[in-house]
């Protein structure tokens, strides 16, 4: 037990000293949440519509004012509007002269323009009815049917962000640290001491799992503090999932350490694995946006399932209990199965 305590204390010291490691596991989620929150957290803010009225104000003006999804910015002339659209001080523009309705979009806003065009078509359709003295005969009522009543874009993203340090904490620690210790013969020296390989890996792993918890709590706290994002957390499931996935991260790191010998190659593989997963696991982009073959690939990526399991534990989505425990058990199994394999290989090579 004393040996374990020494390994544990040394790993804590190493983590606190290694600024890059510290930043990547704790700082990066903070950066992500602040950036995502400030830049895209306002995704549900009204769209800024620049308006130039050269013809009769009504009924267009009252129609636009009725819409909660539009914030109207009145401008004097088409030239002013054109400049405002180009400089992106408004999202898109509208010129109405009584006979023609013109919408202006900035050409480089390729991702935003389809939704602005949709808004524009909606405005034109409503104006057509008003000008002919008609009301809609059919009204589509959008109803939120998700699990969380106050769901927002950040509610979907934050659970994904939480999973990044959990997985990467173990992944990089085992992959690069163990291969580095092996290359520098530190591992061999440690293993000829009365220290058991299991204690060595356990000491290293436990620190990582505690870091995973810390990262998850910091992210949740910051989301609530800065952006007011609150979850209906099922603490029992959350704590178990973080532990199991932290263990899984160690397992994936062990897999990489088993596959390659050099620390450089291990970091390379771990980076590749993590970056591909970040893009294809529905954390940054919804899975529906992926092409069919990448959607299939995403189903084989552990982070896809971990992020969804985390959303369930945080009360954002529904999930069958069989699926949740399957994900949790799967991650735990990866860690329990692969970490001892690495320990055995380390003992043999020592």
């Amino acid at each position: 037990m004393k040996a374990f305590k020494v390994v544990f204390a040394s790993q804590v010291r190493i983590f606190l000293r290694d600024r890059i490691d510290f930043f990547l596991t704790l700082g990066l989620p903070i950066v992500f949440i602040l950036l995502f929150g400030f830049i895209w957290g306002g995704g549900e803010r009204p769209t800024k519509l620049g308006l130039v009225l050269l013809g009769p104000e009504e009924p267009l003006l009252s129609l636009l004012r009725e819409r909660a999804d539009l914030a109207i910015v009145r401008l004097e002339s088409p030239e002013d509007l054109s400049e405002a659209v180009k400089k992106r001080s408004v999202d898109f523009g509208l010129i109405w002269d009584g006979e023609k309705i013109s919408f202006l979009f900035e050409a480089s806003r390729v991702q935003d323009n389809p939704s602005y065009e949709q808004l524009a078509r909606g405005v034109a359709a409503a104006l057509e009815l008003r000008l002919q003295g008609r009301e809609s005969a059919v009204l589509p009522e959008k109803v939120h049917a998700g699990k969380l009543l106050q769901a927002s874009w950040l509610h979907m993203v934050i659970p994904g962000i939480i999973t990044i340090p959990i997985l990467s904490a173990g992944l990089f620690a085992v992959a690069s640290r163990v291969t580095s210790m092996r290359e520098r013969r530190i591992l061999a020296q440690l293993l000829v001491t009365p220290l058991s390989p299991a204690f060595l890996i356990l000491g290293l792993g436990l620190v990582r799992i505690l870091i995973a918890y810390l990262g998850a709590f910091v992210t949740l706290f910051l989301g609530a503090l800065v952006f007011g994002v609150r979850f209906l957390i099922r603490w029992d499931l959350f704590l178990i999932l973080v532990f199991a996935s932290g263990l899984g991260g160690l397992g994936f790191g062990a897999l990489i350490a088993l596959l390659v010998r050099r620390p450089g190659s291990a970091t390379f593989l771990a980076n590749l694995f993590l970056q591909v997963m970040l893009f294809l696991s529905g954390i940054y982009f919804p899975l529906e946006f992926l092409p069919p073959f990448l959607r299939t690939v995403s189903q084989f990526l552990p982070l896809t399932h971990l992020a969804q399991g985390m959303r369930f534990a945080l009360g954002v989505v529904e999930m069958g209990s069989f699926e949740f425990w399957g994900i949790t058990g799967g991650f735990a199994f990866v860690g329990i199965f692969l970490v001892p394999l690495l320990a055995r290989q380390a003992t043999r090579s020592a």
Partner: protein
Amino acid sequence: MTKVYALAKAFVRLYLREKETLFWFLLFPLLLLSLLCLIFGRMEEGGGMGFTVAVVNLDRGLHGAILHQMVKDLAHSTELFHLVEVEEKGDVERMVREGRVSAALLIPADFSESLFKALGMAQPAQVKILYRRGEAGSSLAANILSELVQTYNREVLIRAGLLSPIPPFKLEMALIGARERVRYVDFILPGVVIMGLFVAGLFSVPSAVVLAKEVGILRQYLVAPLTPAGYFAGFTLGHFVFCSLQVFLIWILGRWAFGASISPLRPLAILYLLLGFFVPLSVGFLISAWAKTTGGAFALANIVNLPLQFLGGLYFPVTGLPKFLQGLMAINPLTHLGEGLRAALGIGESAYPSWTGPVVLLLWILLSAIFATKRLGFGVER
């Protein structure tokens, strides 16, 4: 001069040998460009989304059947979504809640009756669109359904003789700020190029300067007949060669794999590419001068890397920020590099006056150079 060339050659070889350097400087930009183009590029080409949309028609009348048929026709003709027919209201609500479908259209049992009354000027008939707020995919699917209902509404009013089929005004939609519709690959390519150059400059200088100083390599260089200026010239030349290779590969991938049509061979674009080389290099020196150790330098580089990239609008146009972030954006070199390069390539206009870009970028180079020269001792006595 031979020494400078030899040193440049050594640095290029070093870059090509280090797997991590190869990953972040060469492979990652190519991977990023490919993934972004595969995801967003196909959306503009009308590529089928992975949406599954459910429809429940509880109405036994004619209007419910027509609306139901319109949803089926849209699903078959455009491949916008995969359609699932559901019988029960409770089932469809559960399917949306559990994420098994992106959105659902619920046509109530009294739809035809309500619509008939609505045509006689009573309250409009309602249909429900179930979705999950906050999920981009679900919101998009709900918007598609909402637009379909609007189209149906117009058709019904026209057929009932309540609305003229000829709109009382002309509708025009125009794109401004570029000569033609900008394709996604043409928008993202300059952003990825600037990202690649920035990451290369930001991380390679600490590894070449601080690490070399820390482990004593610099000391060994400087006892050779090589001046500090010669050392940095060799490093800069080697870095330039490597960055040229990086830009070339990104551009080739964009052009041949994703059909990018923009060409970097324009004087202003070349100027911004050169600034895109020198500014990150100077920021790299600034960080190296600031940090005492390699670990510190890399941590600092990591801290500034992502915020500057995202706030620079390299991947998405950034709007609607709080004031303090707008100020940060205005002095962010990546904002001016990205906007300047895009404007030089004919993709949109910079949100800032044209003179600000070069001025801000030159100030970054100048101030970084002054600070780095003052702080960055070589740690050796010749």
